[in-house]
């Protein structure tokens, strides 16, 4: 579950036309947070989408909902599990995306004394 951004871009473009994606308008971030935890997204990506050695950072993602959904629906081999519509509907995926977009910007490391050598 690492180094997937490049294949994601390529893959996202490839499947864009084939994937039906929910309208992000009206997405429910609170429900997205609930699903993020219930469906185990936090297990690899952290409760705040901060990432770790098991999963990439999601917080402050620059991906569009379309690209995000394309990756989640059919990730490349060796990355995350596929979350197909039977597991998480398009609307639920949009809710999860909405939650990720609510995660606040972090402080820069330079403003945190413990992170300055």
């Amino acid at each position: 579950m690492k180094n997937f951004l490049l294949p994601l871009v390529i893959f996202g473009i490839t499947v864009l036309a084939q994937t039906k994606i929910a309208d992000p308008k009206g997405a429910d971030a609170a429900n997205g947070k609930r699903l993020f935890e219930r469906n185990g997204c936090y297990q690899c990506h952290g409760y705040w989408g901060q990432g770790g050695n098991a999963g990439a950072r999601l917080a402050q993602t620059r991906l569009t909902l379309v690209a995000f959904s394309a990756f989640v629906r059919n990730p490349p081999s060796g990355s995350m599990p596929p979350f197909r519509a039977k597991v998480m509907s398009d609307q639920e995926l949009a809710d999860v995306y909405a939650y990720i977009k609510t995660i606040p910007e972090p402080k820069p490391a330079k403003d945190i004394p413990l992170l300055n050598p």
Partner: protein
Amino acid sequence: MSDSKNPVGRRGFLKRAAAGGAGLAATAPIALAQQAALKPATGSAAEVTSSVRPGSDFMVDVFKTLGIEYIAANPGSSFRGLQESFINYGKNTSPEWLTCCHEESSVAMAHGYAKIEGKPMMIMAHGTVGLQHASMAIYNAFCDRVPVYIVLGNILDVNYRRGNPEWVHSVQDAAAMVRDYTKWDDMPVSLSHFAESAVRAYKISMTPPYEPVVLVADGTLQEEPVTEKNLRIPKLVMNAPPQGDSGAVAEAAKALAAAENPVIVAGRVARTPRGVELLVELAEVLQARVQDQRMRMNFPSAHPLYGHPGAVIASPNLSDHDVILALEAQDLWGITHKMTGFNKFGMESHPTIKPGAKVITVSAIDLNHKSNYQDFGRYVEADLAITGDPEATLPELIEAVKKLITPDRRRALQERGVKIAAENQAGRARNRELAALAWDASPITTARLSAELWAQIKNEDWSLVSNDRFVSSWPTRLWNFSKPYHYIGAQGGSGIGYQLPASVGAALANKKHGRLTVNIQCDGDLNYAPGVLWTAAHHQIPMLNVMHNNRAYHEERMYLTLLGAKYDRDLGRSDIGTALNGPDIDYASIAKGYGLYAEGPISDPKDLGPALKRAIARVKAGEPALLDVVTQPR
């Protein structure tokens, strides 16, 4: 913990026991017949118990010549003779007895101790039930190439088995159970045989590749008097470690010196502090990146040539390199190939290294392969395979490389080094930015935990004795590991239950050097045999345990989610069988119950720094302490 006040010596106790047995026999004819059958062929019971020098005293004399400092053991009747001799005849010094609550703890303590001290601790166990408890920890030590000196009690002679417990604790071939994952064993049948095998066992265990060894101390030999004449203890002469063939080393040097972009993959390289110095020297001579698999403290983490200071240390990207030098590397095939991931069906694999890249291996493991357990990994099609201990082989390799590097070549290599150093610096800066994510989150991030801990210990003489993979390798990414005892790697066999006892053993080794031992302790691991916390308190072993309490066997929970998604299942059920909540486990109360200073649960990151300060003050005063920190999963 010497105890010289015991008013009842074993010899006196045995005399009284024999007298009691005679009294009982007088009123129980059947028992009398049995007693008669149990009498040795020569001599009476009275003569037997009048001995002032049992065989176990001689065994203690033998062990004292080996320089073993400690014996870790949960007491057992099959080695009671040896225990009595160690604590009374041997005065409980060199070695000193450590009271353990589980044999798995005994072995894991020895495992952690050896990786700090560089020599084995002795453990003792019943040849049956004790060894069954110990076996997982022995497998870990075997996979981690760590010496452990295992002594098993057993009563081979049926005539000496006094009742059912001694029958069910006896075995025909005690070491058979662990022979697949120990290097050597023996079951001596005389004291002179015992002396020779005891010395041989130590020598074999400490010849690279280091491994556990087993010596069976027969109960009858322990408890019967010494009757052999001219007993002597053979002199211990250690083997020089196996060094790679000179011709092959010269060939490796030629390839490395000519390489455009070589990389050194370091597995279990540094056996001693010299190993770290040698690896640094080779890397600097070549100006080559070092991909440290973090199985030992091989290479300083802040060195400019330290490669890939990111989260996924176990599987570095080697695709840019034309020569790969693998020094006692683990699963080299796995890090040079890509396999179909868990999220897909079927299995395909392909190399991930550059076509034509030359692979050179230096390893002593080929000297000690076993068949059944598969710790050797997949067969590697190396271009040059050198059998030998890396640390012993490096001096000749370094000199050979130096001779091949001309001044012009040296200038080119310096340019390569500058580029690697810049990448390293960028990687470390990126790590700091990533550590800032979710800085104020509760549960506390593993990055915040690591940063708070580093702030408190960086000016101390510290030693991190836990594997940091389960906390996203944040200590490796944020701290400055430089001294040989700053890190000791992981379990070896990935057997959980290792971490807490191994940390206690490592802390014991650090104690005499006055080092501050730090253990980032996973919650799942602690619950296997938490009694070792009492051992730490009882023997006053100072150490700071900081819980990484994510309230789950989290790795397995991730697997369940991954497979559930793969099969389109309900993903809300991956906590079943993996979560450690409902009720939440109160680790601070557990630790207090075992006699430790403890605080927690700590969920607010603002509370962590002050709690660490309080706990470290107690550790520096000589106590073990535990902080229960509720953390993010990874």
